[in-house]
Protein backbone atom coordinates (compact mmCIF):
# COMPACT_ATOMS: atom_id res chain seq x y z
CA UNK A 1 0.00 0.00 0.00
CA UNK A 2 2.91 2.35 0.64
CA UNK A 3 4.21 1.97 -2.89
CA UNK A 4 0.92 3.11 -4.34
CA UNK A 5 1.80 6.79 -4.39
CA UNK A 6 5.10 5.98 -6.06
CA UNK A 7 3.47 4.14 -8.91
CA UNK A 8 3.87 6.01 -12.12
CA UNK A 9 5.15 9.01 -10.19
CA UNK A 10 6.55 11.76 -12.34
CA UNK A 11 6.25 10.01 -15.70
CA UNK A 12 6.56 12.26 -18.71
CA UNK A 13 4.85 11.59 -22.04
CA UNK A 14 8.20 10.49 -23.46
CA UNK A 15 8.54 7.77 -20.88
CA UNK A 16 4.93 6.71 -21.30
CA UNK A 17 5.37 6.46 -25.05
CA UNK A 18 8.60 4.52 -24.64
CA UNK A 19 7.02 2.07 -22.20
CA UNK A 20 4.03 1.56 -24.48
CA UNK A 21 6.13 0.87 -27.56
CA UNK A 22 8.48 -1.36 -25.61
CA UNK A 23 5.56 -3.37 -24.28
CA UNK A 24 4.06 -3.73 -27.74
CA UNK A 25 7.35 -4.94 -29.20
CA UNK A 26 7.81 -7.43 -26.37
CA UNK A 27 4.29 -8.73 -26.92
CA UNK A 28 4.93 -9.11 -30.64
CA UNK A 29 7.99 -11.19 -29.84
CA UNK A 30 5.87 -13.67 -27.92
CA UNK A 31 2.96 -13.78 -30.32
CA UNK A 32 4.55 -16.41 -32.56
CA UNK A 33 5.70 -19.01 -30.04
CA UNK A 34 3.86 -18.43 -26.76
CA UNK A 35 0.80 -16.38 -27.58
CA UNK A 36 -0.47 -16.27 -23.99
CA UNK A 37 2.58 -14.36 -22.78
CA UNK A 38 1.86 -11.70 -25.36
CA UNK A 39 -1.52 -11.17 -23.71
CA UNK A 40 0.01 -11.08 -20.24
CA UNK A 41 2.66 -8.57 -21.28
CA UNK A 42 0.06 -6.33 -22.89
CA UNK A 43 -2.17 -6.58 -19.80
CA UNK A 44 0.75 -5.69 -17.53
CA UNK A 45 1.72 -2.71 -19.69
CA UNK A 46 -1.90 -1.58 -19.79
CA UNK A 47 -2.20 -1.70 -16.01
CA UNK A 48 1.10 0.11 -15.57
CA UNK A 49 -0.02 2.89 -17.91
CA UNK A 50 -3.33 3.01 -16.08
CA UNK A 51 -1.61 3.79 -12.80
CA UNK A 52 0.21 6.64 -14.53
CA UNK A 53 -3.16 7.90 -15.76
CA UNK A 54 -4.56 7.75 -12.23
CA UNK A 55 -1.77 10.06 -11.11
CA UNK A 56 -2.91 12.69 -13.61
CA UNK A 57 -6.59 12.05 -13.00
CA UNK A 58 -6.26 12.62 -9.26
CA UNK A 59 -5.94 16.36 -9.73
CA UNK A 60 -8.84 16.43 -12.14
CA UNK A 61 -11.28 14.62 -9.87
CA UNK A 62 -10.21 16.91 -7.04
CA UNK A 63 -10.94 20.02 -9.13
CA UNK A 64 -14.31 18.64 -10.21
CA UNK A 65 -15.37 18.03 -6.64
CA UNK A 66 -14.35 21.58 -5.79
CA UNK A 67 -16.18 23.01 -8.77
CA UNK A 68 -19.32 21.34 -7.51
CA UNK A 69 -19.52 23.89 -4.72
CA UNK A 70 -19.16 26.85 -7.09
CA UNK A 71 -21.59 25.81 -9.81
CA UNK A 72 -25.21 25.60 -8.83
CA UNK A 73 -25.71 22.11 -10.26
CA UNK A 74 -27.18 19.26 -8.36
CA UNK A 75 -24.28 17.18 -7.05
CA UNK A 76 -25.86 13.98 -8.30
CA UNK A 77 -25.50 14.99 -11.95
CA UNK A 78 -21.76 15.60 -11.76
CA UNK A 79 -21.40 12.34 -9.84
CA UNK A 80 -23.35 10.53 -12.56
CA UNK A 81 -21.15 11.98 -15.28
CA UNK A 82 -18.05 10.91 -13.43
CA UNK A 83 -19.43 7.39 -13.02
CA UNK A 84 -20.14 7.22 -16.74
CA UNK A 85 -16.57 8.18 -17.55
CA UNK A 86 -15.22 5.54 -15.20
CA UNK A 87 -17.57 2.91 -16.62
CA UNK A 88 -16.53 3.71 -20.18
CA UNK A 89 -12.88 3.50 -19.27
CA UNK A 90 -13.13 0.12 -17.58
CA UNK A 91 -15.28 -1.31 -20.36
CA UNK A 92 -12.86 -0.12 -23.02
CA UNK A 93 -9.89 -1.52 -21.13
CA UNK A 94 -11.50 -4.92 -20.62
CA UNK A 95 -12.87 -5.18 -24.15
CA UNK A 96 -9.52 -4.08 -25.58
CA UNK A 97 -7.78 -6.91 -23.76
CA UNK A 98 -10.37 -9.41 -25.00
CA UNK A 99 -9.97 -8.18 -28.56
CA UNK A 100 -6.20 -8.42 -28.32
CA UNK A 101 -6.56 -12.00 -27.13
CA UNK A 102 -8.70 -12.65 -30.18
CA UNK A 103 -12.11 -12.96 -28.53
CA UNK A 104 -14.18 -10.28 -30.23
CA UNK A 105 -17.48 -11.81 -29.07
CA UNK A 106 -16.66 -11.35 -25.38
CA UNK A 107 -15.47 -7.82 -26.07
CA UNK A 108 -18.75 -6.96 -27.76
CA UNK A 109 -20.72 -8.28 -24.77
CA UNK A 110 -18.67 -6.14 -22.38
CA UNK A 111 -19.25 -3.06 -24.49
CA UNK A 112 -22.97 -3.71 -24.80
CA UNK A 113 -23.26 -4.08 -21.04
CA UNK A 114 -21.38 -0.81 -20.62
CA UNK A 115 -23.72 1.00 -23.01
CA UNK A 116 -26.81 -0.32 -21.28
CA UNK A 117 -25.47 0.59 -17.86
CA UNK A 118 -24.72 4.13 -18.99
CA UNK A 119 -28.24 4.31 -20.41
CA UNK A 120 -29.63 3.09 -17.11
CA UNK A 121 -27.57 5.69 -15.25
CA UNK A 122 -28.91 8.42 -17.49
CA UNK A 123 -32.56 7.48 -17.18
CA UNK A 124 -33.18 9.28 -13.84
CA UNK A 125 -31.72 12.46 -15.30
CA UNK A 126 -34.01 12.18 -18.31
CA UNK A 127 -37.03 11.56 -16.08
CA UNK A 128 -36.09 14.56 -13.94
CA UNK A 129 -35.90 16.65 -17.08
CA UNK A 130 -39.38 15.61 -18.20
CA UNK A 131 -40.75 16.24 -14.72
CA UNK A 132 -39.30 19.73 -14.79
CA UNK A 133 -40.77 20.37 -18.23
CA UNK A 134 -44.17 19.11 -17.09
CA UNK A 135 -44.11 21.32 -14.02
CA UNK A 136 -43.14 24.19 -16.26
CA UNK A 137 -46.05 23.62 -18.60
CA UNK A 138 -48.61 23.03 -15.89
Amino acid sequence: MDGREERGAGMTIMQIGAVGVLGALLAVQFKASKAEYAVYVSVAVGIFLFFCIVQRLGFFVDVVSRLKSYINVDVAYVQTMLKMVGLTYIAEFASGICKDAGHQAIAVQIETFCKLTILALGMPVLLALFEAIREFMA
Partner: protein
Amino acid sequence: MTINLIFKIAAVGILVSILSQVLKHSGRDEQAFLVSLAGLILVLTWILPQIYDLFMTVQRLFAL
Protein backbone atom coordinates in the same frame (compact mmCIF):
# COMPACT_ATOMS: atom_id res chain seq x y z
CA MET B 1 3.36 -2.08 -10.32
CA THR B 2 6.72 -0.97 -11.57
CA ILE B 3 8.19 -1.55 -14.97
CA ASN B 4 10.12 -4.50 -13.52
CA LEU B 5 6.99 -6.60 -13.52
CA ILE B 6 6.76 -6.34 -17.31
CA PHE B 7 10.36 -7.47 -17.66
CA LYS B 8 9.78 -10.31 -15.21
CA ILE B 9 6.85 -11.58 -17.24
CA ALA B 10 8.89 -11.39 -20.44
CA ALA B 11 11.80 -13.16 -18.77
CA VAL B 12 9.57 -15.98 -17.52
CA GLY B 13 8.06 -16.28 -20.99
CA ILE B 14 11.44 -16.58 -22.68
CA LEU B 15 12.70 -19.01 -20.05
CA VAL B 16 9.63 -21.23 -20.33
CA SER B 17 9.85 -21.15 -24.10
CA ILE B 18 13.50 -22.23 -24.11
CA LEU B 19 13.03 -24.86 -21.40
CA SER B 20 10.00 -26.41 -23.06
CA GLN B 21 11.81 -26.52 -26.42
CA VAL B 22 14.80 -28.25 -24.86
CA LEU B 23 12.61 -30.74 -23.02
CA LYS B 24 10.57 -31.50 -26.11
CA HIS B 25 13.70 -32.13 -28.17
CA SER B 26 15.01 -34.56 -25.58
CA GLY B 27 11.68 -36.37 -25.76
CA ARG B 28 10.17 -35.45 -22.37
CA ASP B 29 6.92 -33.99 -23.56
CA GLU B 30 5.02 -34.17 -20.27
CA GLN B 31 7.75 -32.25 -18.45
CA ALA B 32 7.70 -29.62 -21.17
CA PHE B 33 3.98 -29.27 -20.67
CA LEU B 34 4.39 -29.03 -16.90
CA VAL B 35 7.05 -26.36 -17.26
CA SER B 36 4.85 -24.22 -19.50
CA LEU B 37 1.93 -24.73 -17.12
CA ALA B 38 4.09 -23.69 -14.16
CA GLY B 39 5.24 -20.57 -15.99
CA LEU B 40 1.63 -19.73 -16.81
CA ILE B 41 0.50 -20.07 -13.22
CA LEU B 42 3.43 -18.00 -11.97
CA VAL B 43 2.67 -15.16 -14.35
CA LEU B 44 -1.02 -15.35 -13.45
CA THR B 45 -0.23 -14.99 -9.73
CA TRP B 46 1.66 -11.81 -10.62
CA ILE B 47 -0.97 -10.36 -12.92
CA LEU B 48 -4.23 -11.11 -11.08
CA PRO B 49 -3.52 -8.90 -8.01
CA GLN B 50 -2.67 -6.06 -10.38
CA ILE B 51 -5.95 -6.48 -12.25
CA TYR B 52 -7.77 -6.50 -8.92
CA ASP B 53 -5.92 -3.31 -7.95
CA LEU B 54 -6.94 -1.75 -11.23
CA PHE B 55 -10.62 -2.39 -10.73
CA MET B 56 -10.54 -1.29 -7.09
CA THR B 57 -8.77 1.94 -8.02
CA VAL B 58 -11.26 2.75 -10.77
CA GLN B 59 -14.11 1.99 -8.42
CA ARG B 60 -12.64 4.25 -5.75
CA LEU B 61 -11.73 7.03 -8.16
CA PHE B 62 -15.07 7.26 -9.95
CA ALA B 63 -17.22 6.37 -6.94
CA LEU B 64 -18.89 3.60 -8.89
